[in-house]
Protein backbone atom coordinates (compact mmCIF):
# COMPACT_ATOMS: atom_id res chain seq x y z
CA UNK A 1 0.00 0.00 0.00
CA UNK A 2 1.44 3.39 -0.87
CA UNK A 3 2.01 6.00 1.79
CA UNK A 4 -0.66 8.39 0.55
CA UNK A 5 -3.28 5.68 0.87
CA UNK A 6 -2.05 4.84 4.34
CA UNK A 7 -2.14 8.48 5.39
CA UNK A 8 -5.63 8.74 3.95
CA UNK A 9 -6.75 5.67 5.86
CA UNK A 10 -5.29 7.05 9.08
CA UNK A 11 -7.19 10.28 8.58
CA UNK A 12 -10.35 8.30 7.84
CA UNK A 13 -9.94 6.24 10.99
CA UNK A 14 -9.37 9.24 13.23
CA UNK A 15 -12.46 10.95 11.84
CA UNK A 16 -14.78 7.94 12.02
CA UNK A 17 -13.64 6.21 15.19
CA UNK A 18 -16.03 7.83 17.71
CA UNK A 19 -19.11 7.28 15.57
CA UNK A 20 -18.15 3.71 14.74
CA UNK A 21 -17.64 2.89 18.41
CA UNK A 22 -21.07 4.35 19.15
CA UNK A 23 -22.54 2.24 16.37
CA UNK A 24 -20.77 -0.76 17.87
CA UNK A 25 -22.22 0.05 21.25
CA UNK A 26 -25.69 0.23 19.76
CA UNK A 27 -25.16 -3.16 18.12
CA UNK A 28 -23.57 -4.94 21.07
CA UNK A 29 -24.54 -3.06 24.23
CA UNK A 30 -20.96 -3.52 25.45
CA UNK A 31 -18.34 -0.72 25.27
CA UNK A 32 -15.41 -3.15 25.01
CA UNK A 33 -17.03 -5.19 22.27
CA UNK A 34 -18.01 -1.98 20.53
CA UNK A 35 -14.39 -0.86 20.24
CA UNK A 36 -13.28 -4.33 19.21
CA UNK A 37 -15.95 -4.46 16.53
CA UNK A 38 -14.97 -1.04 15.21
CA UNK A 39 -11.31 -1.97 15.17
CA UNK A 40 -12.00 -5.27 13.42
CA UNK A 41 -13.95 -3.51 10.70
CA UNK A 42 -11.32 -0.82 10.27
CA UNK A 43 -8.50 -3.38 10.12
CA UNK A 44 -10.34 -5.16 7.35
CA UNK A 45 -10.89 -1.86 5.60
CA UNK A 46 -7.18 -1.14 5.85
CA UNK A 47 -6.32 -4.57 4.43
CA UNK A 48 -8.55 -3.82 1.45
CA UNK A 49 -8.07 -0.06 1.37
CA UNK A 50 -7.18 0.39 -2.34
CA UNK A 51 -10.36 -1.42 -3.39
CA UNK A 52 -12.48 0.12 -0.63
CA UNK A 53 -11.32 3.58 -1.66
CA UNK A 54 -11.96 2.90 -5.33
CA UNK A 55 -15.49 1.79 -4.49
CA UNK A 56 -16.13 5.31 -3.25
CA UNK A 57 -18.02 4.68 0.00
CA UNK A 58 -15.69 3.46 2.74
CA UNK A 59 -18.26 4.34 5.42
CA UNK A 60 -20.73 1.88 3.94
CA UNK A 61 -18.03 -0.76 3.76
CA UNK A 62 -17.06 -0.40 7.41
CA UNK A 63 -20.69 -0.38 8.57
CA UNK A 64 -21.37 -3.53 6.60
CA UNK A 65 -18.37 -5.29 8.10
CA UNK A 66 -19.38 -4.22 11.61
CA UNK A 67 -22.94 -5.43 11.28
CA UNK A 68 -21.93 -8.73 9.70
CA UNK A 69 -19.07 -9.33 12.12
CA UNK A 70 -21.46 -8.76 15.00
CA UNK A 71 -23.99 -11.18 13.59
CA UNK A 72 -21.22 -13.75 13.04
CA UNK A 73 -20.09 -13.23 16.61
CA UNK A 74 -23.59 -13.95 17.79
CA UNK A 75 -23.93 -17.04 15.67
CA UNK A 76 -20.75 -18.40 17.19
CA UNK A 77 -21.61 -17.59 20.76
CA UNK A 78 -25.32 -18.38 20.73
CA UNK A 79 -25.56 -16.93 24.21
CA UNK A 80 -28.05 -14.33 25.27
CA UNK A 81 -26.29 -11.18 26.42
CA UNK A 82 -27.37 -9.29 29.48
CA UNK A 83 -26.92 -5.56 29.75
CA UNK A 84 -24.77 -4.69 32.72
CA UNK A 85 -24.30 -1.33 34.33
CA UNK A 86 -21.94 0.79 32.30
CA UNK A 87 -18.63 2.01 33.65
CA UNK A 88 -19.00 5.49 35.07
CA UNK A 89 -16.05 6.84 33.12
CA UNK A 90 -18.11 6.66 29.97
CA UNK A 91 -20.59 9.13 31.40
CA UNK A 92 -19.91 12.65 30.18
CA UNK A 93 -21.63 14.85 32.78
CA UNK A 94 -21.40 13.85 36.44
CA UNK A 95 -24.36 16.06 37.32
CA UNK A 96 -26.65 14.10 35.04
CA UNK A 97 -25.02 10.78 35.70
CA UNK A 98 -27.88 9.10 37.54
CA UNK A 99 -30.53 10.14 35.09
CA UNK A 100 -28.46 9.30 32.03
CA UNK A 101 -27.31 6.03 33.51
CA UNK A 102 -30.87 4.90 34.08
CA UNK A 103 -32.00 6.09 30.68
CA UNK A 104 -29.12 4.39 28.96
CA UNK A 105 -29.43 1.15 30.86
CA UNK A 106 -33.15 0.99 30.17
CA UNK A 107 -32.79 1.64 26.48
CA UNK A 108 -29.86 -0.73 26.09
CA UNK A 109 -31.71 -3.43 28.00
CA UNK A 110 -34.63 -3.02 25.64
CA UNK A 111 -32.37 -2.97 22.59
CA UNK A 112 -30.41 -6.05 23.57
CA UNK A 113 -33.63 -7.93 24.09
CA UNK A 114 -34.23 -7.59 20.35
CA UNK A 115 -32.91 -10.17 17.87
CA UNK A 116 -29.66 -9.10 16.19
CA UNK A 117 -31.25 -8.19 12.88
CA UNK A 118 -33.91 -6.00 14.47
CA UNK A 119 -31.38 -4.31 16.70
CA UNK A 120 -29.19 -3.53 13.69
CA UNK A 121 -32.17 -2.09 11.82
CA UNK A 122 -33.11 0.12 14.78
CA UNK A 123 -29.59 1.51 15.22
CA UNK A 124 -28.94 2.06 11.53
CA UNK A 125 -32.38 3.46 10.75
CA UNK A 126 -33.11 5.55 13.82
CA UNK A 127 -29.70 6.52 15.13
CA UNK A 128 -27.66 6.72 11.93
CA UNK A 129 -30.66 8.13 10.04
CA UNK A 130 -30.07 5.84 7.12
CA UNK A 131 -32.82 5.31 4.57
CA UNK A 132 -34.54 1.95 4.36
CA UNK A 133 -32.68 1.29 1.11
CA UNK A 134 -29.34 2.08 2.75
CA UNK A 135 -30.12 -0.19 5.68
CA UNK A 136 -31.11 -2.95 3.26
CA UNK A 137 -27.81 -2.58 1.39
CA UNK A 138 -25.87 -2.69 4.64
CA UNK A 139 -27.64 -5.78 5.90
CA UNK A 140 -27.77 -7.48 2.52
CA UNK A 141 -31.54 -7.88 2.59
CA UNK A 142 -34.56 -6.38 0.86
CA UNK A 143 -36.20 -3.06 1.69
CA UNK A 144 -39.35 -4.98 2.57
CA UNK A 145 -37.40 -7.00 5.07
CA UNK A 146 -36.04 -3.81 6.65
CA UNK A 147 -39.56 -2.42 6.95
CA UNK A 148 -40.90 -5.55 8.61
CA UNK A 149 -37.91 -5.81 10.95
CA UNK A 150 -38.30 -2.16 11.95
CA UNK A 151 -42.01 -2.59 12.51
CA UNK A 152 -41.49 -5.66 14.71
CA UNK A 153 -38.68 -3.96 16.62
CA UNK A 154 -40.79 -0.88 17.35
CA UNK A 155 -43.66 -3.05 18.47
CA UNK A 156 -41.40 -4.88 20.91
CA UNK A 157 -39.87 -1.67 22.19
CA UNK A 158 -43.33 -0.22 22.83
CA UNK A 159 -44.13 -3.21 24.97
CA UNK A 160 -40.76 -3.36 26.68
CA UNK A 161 -40.97 -3.25 30.45
CA UNK A 162 -37.46 -1.77 30.50
CA UNK A 163 -38.84 1.33 28.84
CA UNK A 164 -41.94 1.55 30.97
CA UNK A 165 -42.84 5.10 31.95
CA UNK A 166 -42.33 4.53 35.62
CA UNK A 167 -38.76 3.40 35.26
CA UNK A 168 -37.64 6.62 33.70
CA UNK A 169 -37.06 9.79 35.56
Amino acid at each position, binding site marked *: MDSRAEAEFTEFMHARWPRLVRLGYGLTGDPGLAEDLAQTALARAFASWPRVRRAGDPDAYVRRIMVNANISRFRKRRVREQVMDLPLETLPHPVDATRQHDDRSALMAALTSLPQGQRAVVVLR*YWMDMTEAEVAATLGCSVGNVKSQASRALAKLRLSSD*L*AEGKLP
Partner: protein
Amino acid sequence: MTIDDERELRRRLDSVLEAITPSPAPVAATLRRGGTIRTWRRVGVAVGLAAAVGIALAAPGLVHQIVGRAPITQHEHKWVVTVYPPGPHHPTGEVAWGTINGKRWQITVSSAGQCVQGRFNGQDGDLDCGGPITASQDRSVPVIFTGTSDSRVTFQAGVVQPDVARIVVSLAGGRKLTLQPYPLYGQRWVAFAVPAGLPILNGTAYSTKSELAHSVPYGDDFVTWLRPGEHGRAPATYVIGSGVVDGVSWSAVLHVGPWGYCLDTPGSTYCLGAQSSLDNTYRAGGLIAGGSLLVNGEATASVAYVVGTLTDGRTVRATVVGVGGPRFWAWVVPSGQRLRRVVFYTASGRQVAVQSGAKYNLGI
Protein backbone atom coordinates in the same frame (compact mmCIF):
# COMPACT_ATOMS: atom_id res chain seq x y z
CA MET B 1 -45.14 2.61 26.84
CA THR B 2 -42.57 5.37 26.46
CA ILE B 3 -41.67 5.12 22.82
CA ASP B 4 -44.72 6.50 21.09
CA ASP B 5 -43.15 7.31 17.81
CA GLU B 6 -39.97 7.12 15.81
CA ARG B 7 -38.97 10.61 16.89
CA GLU B 8 -38.88 9.58 20.49
CA LEU B 9 -36.74 6.58 19.62
CA ARG B 10 -34.31 8.77 17.70
CA ARG B 11 -34.05 11.16 20.63
CA ARG B 12 -33.32 8.40 23.09
CA LEU B 13 -30.79 6.69 20.86
CA ASP B 14 -29.03 10.00 20.37
CA SER B 15 -28.95 10.68 24.06
CA VAL B 16 -27.56 7.24 24.87
CA LEU B 17 -25.09 6.70 22.05
CA GLU B 18 -23.74 10.24 21.78
CA ALA B 19 -22.91 10.09 25.47
CA ILE B 20 -20.36 7.33 24.86
CA THR B 21 -16.80 8.60 25.00
CA PRO B 22 -14.56 6.17 23.13
CA SER B 23 -10.87 5.72 23.90
CA PRO B 24 -8.45 7.30 21.43
CA ALA B 25 -8.46 5.62 18.02
CA PRO B 26 -5.95 2.71 18.13
CA VAL B 27 -4.49 3.52 14.73
CA ALA B 28 -1.16 1.71 15.05
CA ALA B 29 -2.78 -1.49 16.34
CA THR B 30 -5.40 -1.35 13.60
CA LEU B 31 -2.75 -0.95 10.92
CA ARG B 32 -0.91 -3.92 12.37
CA ARG B 33 -4.08 -6.03 12.36
CA GLY B 34 -4.95 -4.90 8.87
CA GLY B 35 -1.45 -5.63 7.65
CA THR B 36 -1.61 -9.21 8.80
CA ILE B 37 -4.98 -9.94 7.21
CA ARG B 38 -4.24 -11.91 4.09
CA THR B 39 -5.83 -10.64 0.93
CA TRP B 40 -5.30 -11.43 -2.69
CA ARG B 41 -5.95 -8.33 -4.61
CA ARG B 42 -3.15 -7.38 -6.88
CA VAL B 43 -2.28 -3.79 -7.51
CA GLY B 44 -0.27 -4.88 -10.53
CA VAL B 45 1.45 -1.63 -11.30
CA ALA B 46 3.31 0.41 -8.75
CA VAL B 47 2.33 4.03 -8.16
CA GLY B 48 4.59 6.41 -10.04
CA LEU B 49 6.21 9.38 -8.38
CA ALA B 50 7.51 12.72 -9.54
CA ALA B 51 10.72 14.72 -10.11
CA ALA B 52 13.67 16.31 -8.25
CA VAL B 53 15.40 18.17 -5.28
CA GLY B 54 17.18 17.47 -1.94
CA ILE B 55 20.46 16.67 -0.29
CA ALA B 56 21.16 13.63 1.80
CA LEU B 57 22.97 12.93 4.98
CA ALA B 58 24.26 9.46 5.22
CA ALA B 59 22.67 6.64 7.10
CA PRO B 60 23.71 3.00 6.96
CA GLY B 61 23.39 1.67 3.42
CA LEU B 62 21.51 -1.52 2.91
CA VAL B 63 23.38 -4.48 1.57
CA HIS B 64 21.82 -7.27 -0.42
CA GLN B 65 22.73 -10.80 -1.23
CA ILE B 66 21.17 -13.76 -2.91
CA VAL B 67 20.39 -16.16 -0.11
CA GLY B 68 18.75 -19.00 -1.97
CA ARG B 69 15.43 -20.17 -3.33
CA ALA B 70 12.09 -19.31 -1.87
CA PRO B 71 11.13 -21.75 0.85
CA ILE B 72 8.56 -24.41 0.04
CA THR B 73 6.24 -25.39 2.85
CA GLN B 74 5.92 -29.12 3.44
CA HIS B 75 2.44 -30.49 4.04
CA GLU B 76 2.19 -33.08 6.74
CA HIS B 77 -1.43 -34.18 6.58
CA LYS B 78 -3.36 -36.22 4.07
CA TRP B 79 -5.99 -33.88 2.72
CA VAL B 80 -8.98 -34.75 0.60
CA VAL B 81 -10.33 -31.57 -0.97
CA THR B 82 -13.27 -31.31 -3.36
CA VAL B 83 -15.01 -28.48 -5.21
CA TYR B 84 -18.42 -28.43 -6.90
CA PRO B 85 -20.65 -25.85 -8.59
CA PRO B 86 -23.79 -24.87 -6.65
CA GLY B 87 -26.51 -27.48 -6.60
CA PRO B 88 -30.25 -27.03 -7.28
CA HIS B 89 -31.21 -25.75 -3.80
CA HIS B 90 -28.08 -23.83 -3.03
CA PRO B 91 -28.02 -20.83 -0.69
CA THR B 92 -28.37 -17.37 -2.21
CA GLY B 93 -25.07 -16.07 -3.53
CA GLU B 94 -23.27 -19.41 -3.44
CA VAL B 95 -20.70 -19.76 -6.23
CA ALA B 96 -18.99 -22.98 -5.16
CA TRP B 97 -18.97 -25.55 -2.42
CA GLY B 98 -17.03 -28.65 -1.56
CA THR B 99 -15.44 -30.56 1.26
CA ILE B 100 -12.15 -30.69 3.11
CA ASN B 101 -11.65 -34.11 4.65
CA GLY B 102 -15.41 -34.59 4.60
CA LYS B 103 -16.29 -31.25 6.19
CA ARG B 104 -18.32 -28.93 4.04
CA TRP B 105 -17.17 -25.53 2.87
CA GLN B 106 -19.00 -22.98 0.76
CA ILE B 107 -18.25 -19.58 -0.71
CA THR B 108 -20.92 -16.96 -1.27
CA VAL B 109 -20.80 -13.52 -2.85
CA SER B 110 -23.12 -10.59 -2.17
CA SER B 111 -25.64 -9.46 -4.75
CA ALA B 112 -23.60 -6.38 -5.63
CA GLY B 113 -20.57 -8.61 -6.15
CA GLN B 114 -18.62 -6.71 -3.51
CA CYS B 115 -18.37 -9.20 -0.66
CA VAL B 116 -17.01 -12.71 -0.52
CA GLN B 117 -17.58 -14.94 2.46
CA GLY B 118 -16.33 -18.43 3.13
CA ARG B 119 -17.95 -20.88 5.50
CA PHE B 120 -16.32 -24.05 6.76
CA ASN B 121 -17.74 -26.76 8.96
CA GLY B 122 -20.69 -24.57 9.96
CA GLN B 123 -18.64 -21.52 10.86
CA ASP B 124 -18.38 -18.30 8.89
CA GLY B 125 -14.96 -17.12 7.87
CA ASP B 126 -14.02 -13.46 7.60
CA LEU B 127 -16.23 -11.39 5.35
CA ASP B 128 -14.18 -9.79 2.60
CA CYS B 129 -15.87 -6.69 1.22
CA GLY B 130 -14.83 -3.76 -0.91
CA GLY B 131 -15.42 -2.45 -4.38
CA PRO B 132 -16.97 -4.58 -7.08
CA ILE B 133 -15.14 -7.79 -7.92
CA THR B 134 -14.75 -8.03 -11.67
CA ALA B 135 -12.60 -9.70 -14.28
CA SER B 136 -9.26 -8.04 -15.04
CA GLN B 137 -9.24 -5.32 -17.67
CA ASP B 138 -6.20 -7.11 -19.06
CA ARG B 139 -7.76 -9.92 -21.08
CA SER B 140 -4.58 -12.01 -20.74
CA VAL B 141 -5.26 -12.33 -17.00
CA PRO B 142 -7.87 -15.11 -16.79
CA VAL B 143 -8.92 -14.40 -13.20
CA ILE B 144 -8.02 -12.23 -10.22
CA PHE B 145 -8.71 -14.09 -7.03
CA THR B 146 -9.81 -12.30 -3.91
CA GLY B 147 -10.19 -13.98 -0.60
CA THR B 148 -9.25 -14.50 2.99
CA SER B 149 -7.66 -17.12 5.17
CA ASP B 150 -7.71 -18.01 8.79
CA SER B 151 -5.92 -20.67 10.76
CA ARG B 152 -8.08 -23.39 9.20
CA VAL B 153 -8.97 -22.60 5.61
CA THR B 154 -8.05 -20.36 2.71
CA PHE B 155 -11.03 -19.18 0.64
CA GLN B 156 -10.56 -17.68 -2.83
CA ALA B 157 -13.07 -16.45 -5.40
CA GLY B 158 -12.84 -14.46 -8.60
CA VAL B 159 -14.52 -13.51 -11.85
CA VAL B 160 -13.12 -15.09 -15.01
CA GLN B 161 -12.72 -13.71 -18.52
CA PRO B 162 -15.38 -14.69 -21.07
CA ASP B 163 -13.06 -17.16 -22.84
CA VAL B 164 -12.22 -19.15 -19.70
CA ALA B 165 -13.93 -22.54 -19.65
CA ARG B 166 -12.22 -23.93 -16.54
CA ILE B 167 -9.35 -23.37 -14.16
CA VAL B 168 -7.40 -26.27 -12.74
CA VAL B 169 -5.68 -25.69 -9.41
CA SER B 170 -2.99 -28.20 -8.47
CA LEU B 171 -2.35 -28.85 -4.81
CA ALA B 172 0.52 -30.62 -3.08
CA GLY B 173 -0.05 -34.34 -2.86
CA GLY B 174 -1.27 -34.61 -6.44
CA ARG B 175 -4.84 -33.36 -5.87
CA LYS B 176 -6.28 -31.18 -8.62
CA LEU B 177 -9.33 -28.95 -8.27
CA THR B 178 -11.24 -28.17 -11.46
CA LEU B 179 -13.10 -24.88 -11.12
CA GLN B 180 -16.09 -24.52 -13.45
CA PRO B 181 -17.24 -20.90 -13.90
CA TYR B 182 -20.68 -20.35 -12.37
CA PRO B 183 -22.86 -17.51 -13.71
CA LEU B 184 -24.23 -15.21 -11.04
CA TYR B 185 -25.14 -11.50 -10.96
CA GLY B 186 -24.06 -11.11 -14.59
CA GLN B 187 -20.55 -12.48 -14.11
CA ARG B 188 -18.87 -15.90 -14.22
CA TRP B 189 -17.38 -16.92 -10.89
CA VAL B 190 -14.88 -19.52 -9.80
CA ALA B 191 -14.06 -20.26 -6.18
CA PHE B 192 -12.29 -22.81 -4.06
CA ALA B 193 -11.12 -23.51 -0.55
CA VAL B 194 -8.05 -25.34 0.67
CA PRO B 195 -6.77 -26.15 4.14
CA ALA B 196 -4.37 -23.56 5.50
CA GLY B 197 -0.91 -25.02 5.14
CA LEU B 198 -1.66 -27.19 2.13
CA PRO B 199 0.52 -25.73 -0.63
CA ILE B 200 -1.07 -24.61 -3.88
CA LEU B 201 1.39 -25.57 -6.59
CA ASN B 202 -0.06 -23.91 -9.68
CA GLY B 203 -3.15 -22.91 -11.57
CA THR B 204 -3.94 -23.30 -15.27
CA ALA B 205 -6.72 -21.57 -17.17
CA TYR B 206 -8.24 -23.26 -20.22
CA SER B 207 -10.60 -22.20 -22.94
CA THR B 208 -12.84 -24.84 -24.49
CA LYS B 209 -9.97 -25.67 -26.86
CA SER B 210 -6.60 -25.01 -25.25
CA GLU B 211 -4.56 -23.63 -22.38
CA LEU B 212 -4.85 -19.87 -21.97
CA ALA B 213 -2.41 -19.14 -19.16
CA HIS B 214 -0.77 -20.69 -16.13
CA SER B 215 0.37 -19.32 -12.81
CA VAL B 216 2.66 -20.35 -9.97
CA PRO B 217 1.36 -18.66 -6.81
CA TYR B 218 3.36 -16.98 -4.11
CA GLY B 219 1.96 -18.84 -1.13
CA ASP B 220 -1.75 -18.84 -1.98
CA ASP B 221 -1.54 -15.76 -4.14
CA PHE B 222 -1.82 -15.96 -7.93
CA VAL B 223 0.08 -12.78 -8.73
CA THR B 224 1.21 -13.38 -12.32
CA TRP B 225 -0.34 -15.37 -15.16
CA LEU B 226 2.11 -16.58 -17.82
CA ARG B 227 1.37 -17.53 -21.41
CA PRO B 228 1.54 -21.24 -22.33
CA GLY B 229 5.19 -22.31 -22.56
CA GLU B 230 6.47 -19.35 -20.54
CA HIS B 231 8.36 -20.27 -17.40
CA GLY B 232 8.90 -16.92 -15.72
CA ARG B 233 11.88 -16.24 -13.52
CA ALA B 234 13.68 -18.90 -11.50
CA PRO B 235 12.94 -18.54 -7.79
CA ALA B 236 15.49 -16.55 -5.81
CA THR B 237 15.48 -14.56 -2.61
CA TYR B 238 17.14 -11.21 -2.01
CA VAL B 239 17.61 -9.28 1.20
CA ILE B 240 16.65 -5.76 0.19
CA GLY B 241 17.40 -4.32 3.59
CA SER B 242 18.02 -5.33 7.17
CA GLY B 243 19.21 -3.83 10.40
CA VAL B 244 18.42 -3.08 14.01
CA VAL B 245 16.31 -0.15 15.19
CA ASP B 246 15.66 0.58 18.87
CA GLY B 247 17.06 -2.86 19.64
CA VAL B 248 14.66 -4.64 17.28
CA SER B 249 15.99 -6.36 14.18
CA TRP B 250 14.17 -6.01 10.88
CA SER B 251 14.52 -7.18 7.31
CA ALA B 252 12.85 -6.73 3.96
CA VAL B 253 13.18 -9.90 1.89
CA LEU B 254 12.20 -10.07 -1.77
CA HIS B 255 11.09 -13.39 -3.23
CA VAL B 256 11.45 -13.42 -6.99
CA GLY B 257 10.01 -16.22 -9.08
CA PRO B 258 7.43 -17.12 -11.70
CA TRP B 259 4.89 -15.38 -9.46
CA GLY B 260 6.64 -12.02 -9.93
CA TYR B 261 8.06 -10.06 -7.02
CA CYS B 262 6.86 -10.40 -3.43
CA LEU B 263 8.45 -8.37 -0.66
CA ASP B 264 8.06 -9.73 2.85
CA THR B 265 8.42 -7.14 5.57
CA PRO B 266 7.39 -7.29 9.23
CA GLY B 267 3.63 -7.68 9.28
CA SER B 268 2.97 -7.46 5.57
CA THR B 269 3.68 -8.84 2.12
CA TYR B 270 3.49 -6.78 -1.03
CA CYS B 271 3.50 -8.42 -4.46
CA LEU B 272 3.98 -7.06 -7.93
CA GLY B 273 3.23 -8.97 -11.08
CA ALA B 274 6.13 -9.97 -13.33
CA GLN B 275 4.83 -7.66 -16.06
CA SER B 276 4.42 -4.62 -13.78
CA SER B 277 6.07 -1.44 -14.98
CA LEU B 278 8.06 -0.07 -12.07
CA ASP B 279 8.63 3.57 -11.21
CA ASN B 280 10.15 5.54 -8.35
CA THR B 281 7.84 4.61 -5.53
CA TYR B 282 7.57 4.36 -1.78
CA ARG B 283 5.05 2.72 0.51
CA ALA B 284 4.65 1.65 4.12
CA GLY B 285 5.81 -1.92 4.57
CA GLY B 286 4.67 -2.70 8.08
CA LEU B 287 5.28 -1.75 11.67
CA ILE B 288 8.24 -3.08 13.58
CA ALA B 289 7.95 -3.83 17.30
CA GLY B 290 8.52 -0.58 19.13
CA GLY B 291 6.57 1.47 16.61
CA SER B 292 9.18 2.03 13.90
CA LEU B 293 7.87 1.87 10.37
CA LEU B 294 9.47 -0.02 7.52
CA VAL B 295 9.24 1.90 4.27
CA ASN B 296 10.09 0.31 0.94
CA GLY B 297 9.60 0.84 -2.74
CA GLU B 298 10.89 0.48 -6.27
CA ALA B 299 13.23 2.64 -8.30
CA THR B 300 13.95 3.21 -11.96
CA ALA B 301 17.15 2.09 -13.67
CA SER B 302 19.22 5.23 -13.06
CA VAL B 303 18.55 5.41 -9.31
CA ALA B 304 21.39 4.26 -7.02
CA TYR B 305 20.12 5.29 -3.61
CA VAL B 306 17.06 6.77 -1.92
CA VAL B 307 17.08 9.26 0.94
CA GLY B 308 14.22 10.06 3.31
CA THR B 309 14.16 13.23 5.40
CA LEU B 310 12.43 12.93 8.76
CA THR B 311 10.50 15.55 10.70
CA ASP B 312 13.42 16.12 13.10
CA GLY B 313 15.74 16.80 10.15
CA ARG B 314 17.58 13.51 10.24
CA THR B 315 17.76 11.37 7.12
CA VAL B 316 17.59 7.69 6.33
CA ARG B 317 19.23 6.25 3.26
CA ALA B 318 18.95 3.00 1.35
CA THR B 319 21.01 1.59 -1.49
CA VAL B 320 18.81 0.41 -4.33
CA VAL B 321 19.08 -3.33 -5.01
CA GLY B 322 18.78 -4.60 -8.57
CA VAL B 323 17.20 -8.00 -8.91
CA GLY B 324 17.81 -8.61 -12.59
CA GLY B 325 15.71 -5.78 -13.99
CA PRO B 326 13.50 -4.27 -11.30
CA ARG B 327 15.15 -2.40 -8.45
CA PHE B 328 13.98 -2.29 -4.85
CA TRP B 329 14.95 -0.55 -1.62
CA ALA B 330 13.90 -0.34 2.03
CA TRP B 331 14.61 1.66 5.16
CA VAL B 332 13.10 2.26 8.60
CA VAL B 333 11.46 5.41 9.94
CA PRO B 334 12.06 5.42 13.71
CA SER B 335 9.15 5.54 16.13
CA GLY B 336 7.73 9.03 16.64
CA GLN B 337 9.13 10.32 13.35
CA ARG B 338 7.36 11.11 10.10
CA LEU B 339 8.67 11.42 6.59
CA ARG B 340 9.04 14.89 5.14
CA ARG B 341 10.21 13.80 1.73
CA VAL B 342 11.78 11.01 -0.25
CA VAL B 343 14.43 11.74 -2.87
CA PHE B 344 15.79 9.35 -5.50
CA TYR B 345 19.45 9.87 -6.57
CA THR B 346 21.77 8.56 -9.23
CA ALA B 347 25.22 7.26 -8.23
CA SER B 348 26.68 10.68 -9.05
CA GLY B 349 24.25 12.42 -6.68
CA ARG B 350 21.84 13.78 -9.26
CA GLN B 351 18.27 13.90 -8.11
CA VAL B 352 15.99 11.84 -10.28
CA ALA B 353 12.70 12.17 -8.40
CA VAL B 354 11.31 13.62 -5.20
CA GLN B 355 8.17 12.81 -3.29
CA SER B 356 6.68 14.87 -0.50
CA GLY B 357 6.11 13.01 2.74
CA ALA B 358 4.26 15.91 4.36
CA LYS B 359 0.98 14.05 4.66
CA TYR B 360 2.68 10.93 5.90
CA ASN B 361 1.20 10.26 9.31
CA LEU B 362 0.61 6.94 10.94
CA GLY B 363 -0.81 8.45 14.07
CA ILE B 364 1.82 6.85 16.28
